[in-house]
């Protein structure tokens, strides 16, 4: 057992947590304005792929992150336009977005890199690792907390910033109001549509970063469909965390830990099929403790149902 719970398990849990956390925060913001974003998975995939492309074209980390954010912004704009302007069903648009992302990334993989399945370049430089000066000298904590990619630390800051924004600023309250009751918010002169667009775009940027952490964080590579359901796990994290940034962070921590545990268990002579199942099983179990809003309430809500 002491072999199972060693230092590197916790360190890798932090790495696994980041993409889920960033995407889940995006999902939470969307949920707060009354849009249930099922397209997280697709946005993340596009982020992962465009981060690699950006890195391949420019060779600079900052530019490739910006490129990833730019690409996901375009696609989240599509999502926003379809669901806000054209009033299509958000879930259907989200599903379509996932299809589009999968098709486009696979196609572009062939068109740009001329490879099928996966692109890997050992000369490519991934996200830089930060070593925190004082912390890294603490025996156990140093190894867990220090030496991760920039995005891991950035995601912690983003959580704090979002929490402050949503619950301590006027504009954050307006965002909450726009989702809580669009009609009432409109009557107060709040620009609901504009807020919704802003929320979806912010979500897109976060998903872009989540994808970048996936493809540039640990190894610099992209494989077809490399998000592997993380977008949906992020959706669950959004729900579990009741769409508050701190709650979402807690839920993501659980899932990140489970994911690294499942990788660790593979060394224990268990069939990989069962270890791969762990995150999904735990996610379903975690949903037991979360009460979804009643469907009646949803039916009464003017902002469409999430089912």
């Amino acid at each position, binding site marked *: 057992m002491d072999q199972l719970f060693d230092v590197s398990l916790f360190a890798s849990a932090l790495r696994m947590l980041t993409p889920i956390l960033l995407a889940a925060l995006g999902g939470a913001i969307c949920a707060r304005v009354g849009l249930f974003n099922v397209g997280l998975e697709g946005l993340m995939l596009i982020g992962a792929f465009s981060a690699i492309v950006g890195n391949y074209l420019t060779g600079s980390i900052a530019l490739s992150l910006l490129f990833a954010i730019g690409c996901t912004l375009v696609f989240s704009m599509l999502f926003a336009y379809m669901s806000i302007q054209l009033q299509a069903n958000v879930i259907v648009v989200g599903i379509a977005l996932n*299809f589009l992302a*999968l098709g*486009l990334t696979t196609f572009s993989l062939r068109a740009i890199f001329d490879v099928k399945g996966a692109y890997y370049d050992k000369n490519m430089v991934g996200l830089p690792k930060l070593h925190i000066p004082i912390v890294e000298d603490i025996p156990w904590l140093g190894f867990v907390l220090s030496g991760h990619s920039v995005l891991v630390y950035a995601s912690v800051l983003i959580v704090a910033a979002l929490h402050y924004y949503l619950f301590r600023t006027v504009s954050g309250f307006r965002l909450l109001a726009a989702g809580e009751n669009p009609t009432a918010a409109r009557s107060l002169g709040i620009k609901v549509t504009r807020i919704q667009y802003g929320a979806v775009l912010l979500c897109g940027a976060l998903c872009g970063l989540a994808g970048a952490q996936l493809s540039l964080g640990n190894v610099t590579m992209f494989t077809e469909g490399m998000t592997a359901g993380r977008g949906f796990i992020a959706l669950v994290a959004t729900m579990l965390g009741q769409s508050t940034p701190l709650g979402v962070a807690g839920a993501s921590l659980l899932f990140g830990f489970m994911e690294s545990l499942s990788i660790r268990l593979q060394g224990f002579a268990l069939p990989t099929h069962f270890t791969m199942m762990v995150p999904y099983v735990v996610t379903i179990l975690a949903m037991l403790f979360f009460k979804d809003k009643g469907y009646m309430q949803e039916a009464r809500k003017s902002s469409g149902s999430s089912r």
Partner: protein
Amino acid sequence: MDKLVNGFKPLLQPLLALIAGLAVGAIAIVIVGGSVTETYAEMWKGAFGNFYFVTNTLARATPIILIGLGVALAFRAGFFNMGSEGQMVLGALSAAVTAIYLPGPGWLKLIGAIMAGMLAGGIWSAFAGWLDARFRMNLLITTLLLNYIATYFAGYVVTYPLKDTTGSAAMAQTVMLDKAAWLPKLFQGYSLHAGFVLALLGTILLYLFMKHTVKGYEIRMLGGNPLFASYGGVQRGQLMFLSMFVSGGLAGLAGSVEVLGTQYRYLDGALTSPGYAWSGIMATLLAGSHPIGTAIAALLIAALQTGGMGMERNTEVPLEVSSIIQAVLILFVSAKLTYSFIKRKKAGAGNGPAV
């Protein structure tokens, strides 16, 4: 005249979507430096070039139709069943296991296998329905997560306990089924099998069920307006169970006919890598969950896929162009960019309907 216009209206949307999809596909072809007309000609040939290709397309459409029907039923009832993949895989596995171990003559094995496949898919799907009814777990998410669990489980079963160790091929698959338990081919030497007939039957049955039975009406009511339905005394939990069970059962049937009619064994990944389940969901979305429309949309999607393969064989254009076309189709249809949308806008309705 009015009749003609009204008959054409539901077709207008998919047609517009198809044109948009082909236009985006054309852009993608130009990007990789192919010739648009030549590529699309190859695509057409790959899908309907001769009798062999036509039967091939129909064979591919078979599981897509069945899955699409199941999803259509769930969507009509207002439940986002995204778990077709897991339901199909478990159905296929159960069908294979039943056909291998059930004693008796071939026809009995065949019928038993199909029953087992439908039952397994149905139970897996109803389980998600139960989780929603009992614990209020969001159905969309649970069905999605159950997919992964089902595929890993099926993978485990054919990698360890039921692995075929007779041949030299080191693949994760069960042993070959008894020849007597195979679904017959419709034409000697072509890949089209009797499962296609089942798919057509299912389409007609589901259409009649939705249109002419009380339960079908209740399901449509529940999906259309849950408040009205509950006011009228529709039992939501019970209907959810029923529609999810049938929905999963159809997905399980899709897996079963693939095993009994095409592969004659359960091979790990043989059902998931062609993406039958997602194609079925796409067909449903494309047709607005109308049973007959879903079957036609499934044919269209299968043709795009087989056509894409033909295109890849004979041109330099990658296969993925067809998946881009498919995604654009869905996006376009979901936006409901037609007459009905303008009408809704005027009425000041909020969100678009799911179907």
